[in-house]
């Protein structure tokens, strides 16, 4: 930030800047207009070396040498080395810095000399500076003043060929097609915003003109999108054809769908009902002899159907339409339950047991052999479905 410290030298009146050697102890020429001051400082500079050396021998920091200053007081503007004065000085510096910061606009105005005044004030303050701490504040002020000086110089520069930005704005609006309403008094002094109706494409119009002054690369987009071009094209054609024949087809489809839905959702239920019906039919013939479970469910020709049968029978058992028991030989038998005391009560009253039947392919084969099952008691569902559809 201090790179601008030395730049604005010409525009700052009456103050030669020497950014290289800002040492309060050396005899720099700070203000050519005040030679007496300079001489005094020169003498003071030389005089100051003694207490410095003394302080260094003492090994203390600079702050501690205040007690040794009194001897040199006569040649320097600064009175005997007191914290109070230095504190006052720092306070004044800070005030000055604050003032400059607060009144920035005023400082920058080309009509005012306040920046120069501030500089001169700082110059005066500087005469009282002897320690690094105050010098640092002075340096801080210097940076601030230099930046302001640079800004001020910039403003001077552009004012040489005045650019009237309000007029530019007006011309822009005209170009963009502002439709100024007639009959409205336009006090451009009071209103910074022109009245009138700006069309929607105003900025586009301006942008189109602006494009001609740029070398922008056009935005690159794949013409057919980022994916391979082939699939989208056929899809569109199909869609069009579908739409045309759509109305007729739609009528046909629901009927088919319904049937399919029925068969999917209710297939299981239907199967279960069917099997229950079969079971009851069989039992009518032989009401007293329970049917062997295996005889009932096993399909000697298909293991899969056997498993399905067991699955469907389990529903029947769950709903209480049939029971499975073990007979004297510890083989499972199945019989429909006759009690009609309210199936629901049955389900609650009866002890419900759960069992897991595992049946491997090998088991199934063994059972078929052992029980000599040749025909399934539950006919496969395929046959009956064909009848339905």
């Amino acid at each position: 930030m201090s790179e601008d410290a030395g730049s604005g030298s010409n525009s700052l009146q009456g103050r030669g800047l020497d950014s290289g050697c800002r040492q309060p102890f050396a005899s720099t020429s700070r203000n050519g207009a005040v030679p007496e001051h300079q001489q005094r400082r020169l003498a003071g500079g030389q005089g100051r070396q003694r207490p410095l050396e003394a302080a260094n021998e003492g090994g203390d920091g600079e702050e501690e040498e205040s007690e040794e200053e009194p001897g040199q007081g006569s040649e320097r503007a600064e009175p005997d080395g007191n914290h109070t004065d230095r504190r006052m000085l720092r306070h004044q510096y800070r005030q000055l810095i604050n003032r400059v910061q607060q009144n920035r606009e005023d400082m920058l105005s080309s009509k005012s000399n306040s920046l120069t005044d501030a500089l001169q004030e700082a110059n005066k303050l500087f005469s009282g500076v002897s320690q690094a701490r105050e010098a640092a504040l002075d340096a801080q002020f210097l940076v601030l003043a230099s930046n302001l000086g640079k800004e001020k110089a910039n403003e001077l520069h552009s004012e040489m060929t005045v650019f009237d930005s309000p007029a530019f704005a007006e011309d822009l609006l005209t170009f963009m097609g502002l439709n100024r309403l007639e009959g409205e008094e336009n006090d451009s002094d009071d209103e910074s915003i022109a009245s009138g109706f700006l069309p929607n494409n105003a900025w586009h119009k301006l942008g189109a003109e602006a494009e001609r002054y740029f070398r922008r690369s056009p935005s690159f987009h794949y013409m057919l999108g980022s994916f391979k071009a082939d699939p989208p094209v056929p899809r569109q054609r199909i869609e069009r054809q579908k739409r045309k024949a759509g109305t007729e087809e739609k009528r046909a489809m629901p009927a088919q769908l319904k049937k399919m839905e029925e068969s999917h959702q209710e297939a299981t239920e239907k199967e279960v009902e069917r099997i229950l019906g079969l079971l009851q039919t069989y039992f009518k013939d032989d009401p007293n002899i329970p049917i062997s479970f295996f005889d009932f469910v096993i399909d000697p020709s298909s293991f899969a159907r056997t498993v399905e049968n067991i699955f469907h029978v389990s529903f029947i058992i769950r709903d209480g339409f049939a029971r499975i028991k073990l007979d004297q030989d510890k083989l499972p038998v199945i019989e429909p339950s006759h009690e009609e005391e309210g199936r629901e009560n049955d389900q609650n009253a009866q002890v419900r047991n759960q069992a897991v039947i595992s049946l491997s392919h090998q088991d199934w084969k063994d059972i078929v052999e052992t029980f000599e099952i040749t025909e399934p008691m539950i006919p496969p569902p395929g046959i009956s479905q064909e009848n339905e559809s």
Partner: protein
Amino acid sequence: MAQKRRGKGPGPSQGEDPAGDEDYALTQSASQVRRNLERLSPAQVDQKVSELVQYLLVKDQKKIPIKRADILKNVIKDYRGVYSEIIKRAGRTLQQVFGLQLMEIDPKHHIYILVSILPRLEVDNLKQDDCTAKLGLLTVILSFLFMKGNAAKESAVWETLRRLRVDPGVRHEVFGDVKKLVTEEFVRQKYLEYNRIPHTDPPEFEFQWGARAAKETSKMQILRFVAKIQNKDPKAWSTQYTEAAAEEAAAGGLFQDISTPGDTGGASQGARRRTR
């Protein structure tokens, strides 16, 4: 089957490129690059060049400058040893096929943009979209900045824009969040620079031209724009004209006056013209 050459040092797939390795691979001498090139088949190198061309074109859509680090990570990968050759060829392809110039706008951080080298069509009814409108706004800002001495305080810029019914506090029907557009999007695209003014409290900012603006247009072009809008001769602003002419002269006449709308002296035929 040509074998793929292994990259030097930890591969880019690690996600970060140790700066040392990146620079090492890239600062190889021309002869080293040539040797690396010989180890690869022409088809492999061509493939990489094509990939880079496509990558640059797509990355340029949003007009956000492309970083070399991204190029290395996403495209070059193991072919770092021939990076300079690949980028050279890609630049050539872009020039010859697309009429675009690959320019490095930041030699320190290695950031690239694409700029058109074709003359602009003097035709109406070119496609207009949001980008067009945004360019209009940007041009107003760039004009203001240049005519006011190449920099302006943010408050001054907004003051001018308010006259055009663009207010940072109000949602604009074309631009939406204008403040964000101007202070973020344009800055990210490097059209504008948005810097803090030192010693201001509360902090104030100033705008300047960005590196992309400097390449895609010029002071003279913007001066001509202003002149057109205000129906005056560019020389009416002597300081600015002098400055613009100086910039043109310094640029050495490369890519000058590609489009000189309203300029009766010598139409540009797409060939490079020296400055007058």
